[in-house]
């Protein structure tokens, strides 16, 4: 398509509100996200907020949820659902200080049901917060310079960044940019301070949202920075992925990848996961203009009529990658350079101890499904609080929901190791490689969209799969397995070698053939099946893999070669 000829604009921001979806009107009339949130917060007849305030609060990183385990029971008791709120912290690159950790720990104990949750986008979630405690939580975060802005909602989500501890200098550079990118792209509305900090409303000179305007983005928009050879952030799943290109350990610029996104809906072929397309390279000094250009194209052309079709990936496939690229370059005022060579080796975490080039030490802990809680077996929450109490470096949350105790001076290592031993946080060595490469989304009981268990179920399922691995001698073979409670794909299941997405209680779709370092989508192998069928299929395919794999061949690659599933070359064909 030629740049001059305008594409179809019948569904984007150029249309009057009544021609667009209801959420657009809601945003437009919300007075920059204020809505009636303040009133909702003081209504003591219900633990919930109004439906429209619940939507607006997402822009502030807060989700209304209810305890689904007792939803039905309470309905019969003539009680409203057990409403509570989830708050997601804005933590670019997943880096936080010990003092921030201690505050989060305290908030989790005081208001968050004695638990913290590390997410697949490198941040913390607090669950089970009561409405009347929300302000206390958000003001508590403020004390340690944290907020929950734009952690959800139709705006730029948490900005990811490879945690790779070995390349300390490069990481420091890229991380600094990721942080700036987050601050650059986050919304500006004064509503946040007014509602959560009780600030006075300030008259803004000029528009309150210079970039977003009254209707923000058509849908969530995700940015991530990857530092090869690690693709831990799954750069191809980002709306805008930036692949760091360095020379002699010094950052030069980024390859630009656009249009990643995994969410899909069952029985809706028009929805599909899509891996980002690399469209070129820019020098580091062009980073922010590129971010603005890419985001503004989606802001202006994204579908605002149908939210199932509103992500950037669909805008690209509708308008055509070339046209989108040209439009980006037009807004950028220059052409992108050809993409630079790079290569990824894995999207997992290197667990255990490593030494950075600067001699500082780092230890990556396996936190199963990112759940930080004290259990009879292991007092993980207490242990990490103890470590935060003496740690002088930083913590880094990995995109695989795990945790790095980072920047430890060699002389401080013994003390930290002692605490790890005391609280049993070092037991990851003893687990199977499959478990160490497993991820599950939150799902039940808090997630409103869950159709099946995930976080509460995957550990048991993995235990059963480990038996199969033992019989086939694959216990130490790294294989990625990811489960979600619904097709939305929060644990990025569609780029796992073994993917499981919930369809109904106890029923899952089984996907095989994903790329080990996130370079390829997987393909559905079994639809809507229970545990027995899943284990049987894995026994068969893993057994075959153990016998017939080529040297160094990955399980995902093998399942395609062996013909269990066809290779998915492009998201558009995922459902074929």
């Amino acid at each position: 398509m030629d740049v001059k000829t305008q594409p179809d604009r019948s569904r984007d921001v150029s249309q009057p509100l009544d021609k667009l979806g209801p959420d657009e009107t809601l945003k437009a009339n919300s007075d920059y996200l204020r809505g009636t949130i303040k009133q909702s917060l003081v209504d003591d007849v219900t633990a919930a907020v109004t439906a429209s305030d619940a939507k607006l609060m997402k822009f502030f990183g807060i989700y209304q949820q209810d305890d689904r385990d007792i939803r039905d029971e309470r309905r019969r008791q003539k009680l409203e659902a057990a409403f509570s709120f989830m708050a997601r912290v804005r933590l670019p690159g997943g880096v936080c200080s010990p003092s921030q950790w201690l505050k989060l720990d305290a908030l989790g104990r005081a208001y968050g049901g004695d638990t913290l949750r590390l997410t697949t986008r490198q941040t913390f979630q607090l669950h089970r917060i009561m409405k009347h405690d929300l302000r206390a939580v958000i003001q508590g975060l403020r004390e340690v310079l944290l907020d929950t802005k734009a952690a959800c909602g139709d705006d730029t989500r948490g900005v990811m960044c490879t945690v790779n501890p070995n390349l300390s200098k490069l990481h420091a550079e890229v991380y600094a940019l990721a942080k700036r990118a987050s601050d650059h792209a986050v919304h500006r509305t004064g509503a946040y301070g007014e509602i959560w900090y009780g600030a006075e409303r300030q008259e803004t000179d000029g528009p309150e949202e210079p970039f977003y305007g009254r209707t923000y983005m058509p849908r969530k928009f995700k940015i991530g920075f990857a530092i090869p050879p690690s693709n831990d952030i799954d750069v191809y799943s980002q709306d805008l992925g930036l692949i760091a290109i360095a020379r002699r350990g010094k950052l030069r610029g980024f390859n630009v990848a656009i249009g990643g996104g995994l969410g899909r809906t069952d029985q809706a072929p028009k929805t599909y996961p899509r891996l980002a397309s690399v469209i070129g390279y820019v020098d580091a000094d062009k980073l922010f203009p590129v971010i603005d250009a890419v985001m503004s194209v989606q802001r202006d052309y994204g579908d605002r009529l149908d939210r199932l079709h509103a992500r950037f990936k669909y805008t690209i496939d509708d308008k055509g990658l070339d046209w989108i690229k040209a439009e980006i370059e037009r807004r950028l005022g220059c052409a992108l350079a050809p993409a630079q060579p790079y290569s990824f080796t894995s999207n997992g975490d290197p667990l255990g101890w490593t030494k950075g080039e600067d001699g500082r030490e780092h230890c990556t802990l396996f936190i199963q499904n990112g759940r930080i809680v004290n259990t009879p077996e292991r007092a993980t929450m207490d242990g990490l609080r103890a470590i935060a109490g003496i740690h002088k470096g930083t913590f880094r949350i990995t995109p695989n929901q795990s945790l790095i105790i980072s920047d430890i001076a060699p002389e401080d290592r013994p003390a930290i190791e002692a605490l790890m031993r005391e609280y049993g946080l070092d037991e990851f060595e003893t687990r199977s490689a499959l478990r160490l490469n497993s991820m599950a989304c939150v799902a039940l009981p808090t997630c409103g969209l869950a159709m099946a268990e995930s976080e509460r179920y995957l550990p048991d399922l993995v235990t059963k799969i480990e038996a199969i691995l033992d019989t086939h001698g694959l216990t130490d073979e790294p294989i990625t397995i990811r489960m979600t409670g619904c097709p939305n794909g929060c644990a990025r299941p569609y780029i796992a070698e073994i993917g499981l997405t919930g369809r109904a209680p106890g029923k899952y779709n089984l996907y095989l053939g994903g790329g080990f370092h996130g370079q390829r989508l997987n393909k559905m192998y079994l639809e809507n099946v229970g545990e027995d069928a899943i284990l049987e299929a894995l026994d068969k395919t893993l057994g075959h893999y153990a016998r017939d794999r080529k040297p160094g061949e990955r399980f995902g690659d093998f399942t395609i070669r062996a013909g269990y599933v066809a290779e998915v070359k492009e998201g558009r064909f995922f459902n074929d």
Partner: protein
Amino acid sequence: MTKLEFPGSALTTDQWEQIGRLATSLSQEQAIWISGYFAGLSHQARAGTISADVLEQLAPPSRSVPGEAPATRLLTVLFGSETGNSRALAKSLAEEARAKGIQVQLADMADYKTRRLKDEQDLFVIASTHGEGDAPQTAVGFFEFLESRKAPKLPQLRYAVLALGDSTYERYCEAGKRIDRRLEELGAQRLVDRVDCDVDYEDAAAAWMTASVAKLAPAAQKSTSVAASVAGAQSDAPAAPAFDKKHPFQAAVIDNIVLTGRGSSKETRHIELSLADSGLTYQPGDALGVMPRNDPTLVAALLERLGLSADASVTVKQNATTLGEALAGAFEITALTPRFLDHWAEITGTAELQALRGADHAEARAAFQHNHHILDVVSKFPARGIDAAQFVAGLRPLQPRLYSIASSLAAAPEEAHLTVSTVRYALHDLPRTGVASGYLAARAEADATVPVYIQANDHFHLPDDDVPILMVGAGTGVAPYRAFMQEREVRGASGRSWLFFGERNFRSDFLYQVEWQELLKNGVLSRLDLAFSRDAAPKTYVQDRLRRQGRDVYAWLEEGAYLYVCGDAAHMAPDVHAALTDIIVEHGGLDREGASAYLSTLQRDRRYRLDVY
């Protein structure tokens, strides 16, 4: 005013001429006044109570001439009742006296004009005790007057008192005792000794009535037209249904669910009963009487301690039955009564029990009663080889329990819903459950039947549709308000409504939460204020919420709102009363005396209504 034509046989010629003369001499106003007066007189007569104003008019000036005695003696049967027992007894007493040709008036302390007292000649009082030794709610005004300095000397008065009560309460029949004492102080002459009745009052009451009436009978004159017209007493009472306290209806359980959510410190249930084919009807505000059965495990435990067999035969009210059945369905076998204490003291001859007998040990006895059930006494002081008859002789009949009906027939035809809080506590490390609430919790599962009857609660009904109502209730105290709101929703009532509800925890104890939310949304409920005492320090209760809304509460009262208070009698009701007094002082610009006068007036006007237990 012109003379009328002779109307015929209704009047004697003599009367007719008098009226004629009168008519010509009357001004318009006087004529209207007189017609109203006669209408009022005949109405009052039909209603069965002659109110003071009418009486005073009845009494000709000549009557106040000293020394001149009235033509005949008049007996007034005065009752103070809350749950209807005294009222029912008073009615039959009036009948019995009338049958003996005595001139009778039946009067309720609730609307008795105290000015009348000084003119009373014979006064039979039947009064129950409520709260903690208090007068029935509706009689509080009468008691205040009688025990105040305003009460006149009553040398000419002859009286008798029947006191209804419950011997498990520390201040047994206290209200009746107070009246008896006070009338004596005022110089009245006691005709018959007071009789204190326990909850099985029927026989004792009957005996007292016969004795009292006998004292008057000789003096009785020929009955007058007024007395005769009293025949249809209490016309406001609904036609007696086929089923009543003595003949309860077997109501099928439709549903029985726990309303309190997980983690609650309480267990409060919602129980739906079917009244289908019973012909039973009720109004919002009425209560349902439930006849429970005792806990089978308790019956077994008792039998085991007594070394008696369930099959041992006993006679209950002239009917032969087994001991097992009698203990399960005929007698109270939990709480201790002085009667049982005496009984057991005699049987076992134990010094420790003997020491608790007699009026001068009331306190010690009350304390002992409070922390010993029959089971504990029987275990602690075993009686060797006693037989079934001996044991049950010490027991009193099993009593029905009352529950405010939480539904409206308009919304749930042929159903009655209850909101029941299960009484559970431990005594001597043994878990105990309330007889009726425990029975409803454990054995009223769907399709079982529960014996019930309607207990009208005239003083707790809704006002006209356009009158605003303030409803204050803690815990199960909201039950009648659910009925009120259902009724008003169906009727499309225009009056505003404001609920103050209190419980322990928002998350688990917000009884009927979604229903209140819905009623608020569709405007049937205008306002809702909540107090959850255990969610935050300092603890807040309904009375605190009332105070916080003081200005509006006062405004509502000034605009004619009816005020309802339902639930806990021991703490909530008094605390709410205190809060209301403060509110009236602060916003009504009155001093404390003025404020309590304000509230008494509300109470007398039936605009401040309590249903507490």
